[in-house]
C-alpha cells in the first residue's frame, strides 16, 4: 500500500506545551488534509491545505506545506488533555482518492 510517513510515531507532552508532527509523502498532490482520530472513533477533519498554499491557520492549529520537500507539519499550540488522539495526514493521489499516513499518537498529560 502507498502511505505517507508521519513522525514522530508517538509524542507525549505536558498540557500547555506545543505539539509538532510531520508528514512526508511520495507523489505530487493537489491537497493535503489533516485528521484527528480519538480512540475507537471515526476521523475528524481538521484542516485542508492546497498545493499552492504554504501555511494555514485554524484556531490553535497551524499547518505548513513544503511541496519541494513533499512534507507538511501540523502544530498544535497550548495543547490540552482533550487533544490526546492520533493525527493523520492524507494526500490526494487522485481527486477522490486520499492516501493516509501511519499517524502520530499524541498524548497530552494534564
Amino acid at each position, binding site marked *: *500500500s502507498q*502511505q505517507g510517513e508521519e513522525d514522530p510515531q508517538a509524542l507525549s507532552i505536558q498540557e500547555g506545551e506545543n505539539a509538532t508532527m510531520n508528514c512526508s509523502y511520495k507523489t505530487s498532490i*493537489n*491537497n493535503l*488534509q489533516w*485528521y484527528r482520530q480519538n480512540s*475507537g*472513533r*471515526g*476521523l*475528524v*477533519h481538521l484542516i*485542508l491545505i*492546497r498545493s499552492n498554499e504554504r501555511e494555514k491557520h485554524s484556531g490553535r492549529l497551524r499547518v505548513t506545506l513544503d511541496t519541494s520537500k513533499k512534507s507538511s507539519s501540523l502544530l498544535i499550540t497550548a495543547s490540552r488533555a482533550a487533544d490526546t488522539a492520533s493525527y*493523520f495526514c*492524507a494526500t*490526494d493521489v*487522485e*481527486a*477522490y*482518492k*486520499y*492516501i*493516509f*499516513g*501511519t*499517524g502520530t499518537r499524541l498524548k497530552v498529560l494534564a
Partner: protein
Amino acid sequence: GAGVSQSPRYKVAKRGQDVALRCDPISGHVSLFWYQQALGQGPEFLTYFQNEAQLDKSGLPSDRFFAERPEGSVSTLKIQRTQQEDSAVYLCASSLSPPHMYMNTEAFFGQGTRLTVV
C-alpha cells in the same frame, strides 16, 4: 441525519462467514468512500462512489469484497467467506460534492465498523 452512520458498530464473524456492513451517508452527499483501517495503521482506500456509480474499486483487496450504492444514498460493503486478515475497522465517509482540486473536499467519516474474524 446529523452525520455519517455505520452499522453494526462491532461484528464478530466466524471464518468463512459472509458479512454486510452498512453506511448511511449525510443526506444529499454525492461522494461516498470506504476505507479499511488495520490496528495501529492509517486508513487505506477501498472504493469510491459518485452517486450510484462506483468509479473506483481498485483498493478492494480481493474479489471477496463487493460494495454497492444502488440508489445513490445508503451503501453496503459485503465481504464473502471472511478470513482472519479481514479483521479491521471499516470506515465510511461522505462528502457533499464530487472531489475537485479547487473545491473543499472535506469528507465526513462515520465511527466505523470493527470486524473481528475468529
